[in-house]
């Protein structure tokens, strides 16, 4: 028996589908996957509707289910998470820095000249930002998104994605350096 007093599945699509879709799109950047997820979320929600206690809003509850599914996808996208070669990632830093830790001249950060007061300008920048995020390796993208978009705790991210704390910091550092470099290259 559905708790129809609390949940109204007849209105789910009207009330929440676009929201959930945008939520998934901003975190997956994949239309087909995002669509599929919205459907999966509704079906999963129906199955466990008896577990809904009405402590949160319907939307919050559906979004929580969606978040878990997104993490599942992050996991699937980055196989062999345990074996992430930290050494290799650290060595790759050499692309940007000399051995003594100095920036290589060709990678010096330069001003973006971004005007955040101009919505159009900012919109363009967002596009470039998404483009550059997509280019990150899957695991880095997952760690980066969970941290900076979701504001998940470091502990949760490490547990969910099976990353050690040392790897987490290497990835966070590395992802930002790459992302920033891509922004500079594409934007300026």
């Amino acid at each position, binding site marked *: 028996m559905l708790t129809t007093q609390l949940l109204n599945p007849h209105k789910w699509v009207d009330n929440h589908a676009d929201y959930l879709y945008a939520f998934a799109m901003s975190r997956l950047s994949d239309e087909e996957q995002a669509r599929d997820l919205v459907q999966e979320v509704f079906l999963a929600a129906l199955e466990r509707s008896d577990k809904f206690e009405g402590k949160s809003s319907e939307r919050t509850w559906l979004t929580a289910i969606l978040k878990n599914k997104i993490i599942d996808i992050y996991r699937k996208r980055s196989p062999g998470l345990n074996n992430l070669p930290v050494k290799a990632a650290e060595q790759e830093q050499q692309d940007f820095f000399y051995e003594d830790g100095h920036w290589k001249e060709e990678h010096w950060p330069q001003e973006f000249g971004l005007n955040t007061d101009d919505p159009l300008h900012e919109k363009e920048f967002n596009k470039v*930002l998404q483009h550059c995020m997509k280019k990150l390796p899957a695991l880095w993208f997952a760690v980066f998104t969970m941290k900076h978009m979701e504001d998940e705790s470091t502990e949760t991210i490490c547990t969910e994605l099976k990353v050690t704390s040392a790897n987490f910091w290497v990835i966070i550092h590395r992802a930002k350096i790459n992302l920033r470099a891509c922004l500079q290259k594409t934007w300026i």
Partner: protein
Amino acid sequence: MGPIKKIIYNCKRATFLIEKKLIEGLTLREKMELYIHLYGCSVCRVFDKQSALINKMVQQLFKSSNDDKIRLDDTFKQGLQHRIEEELNKN
């Protein structure tokens, strides 16, 4: 090389500290290290500013994708609601 001298010349370490600062904060010692480095390194000062800006923009991505009205098409939505009704009728 002493620890302070080390940080003065190490941009890789400084950029790491900038990330750490943004995520969980720095110890007093680390704060000092970074402060000294940034004082003398204009390149890392640009990185520092941009790194915080990037975080802010990433947080806003979802909001802006909502404003842009990223929407599912109506046919898909109709099919979806139909599917839900079917499931509901099963019970």
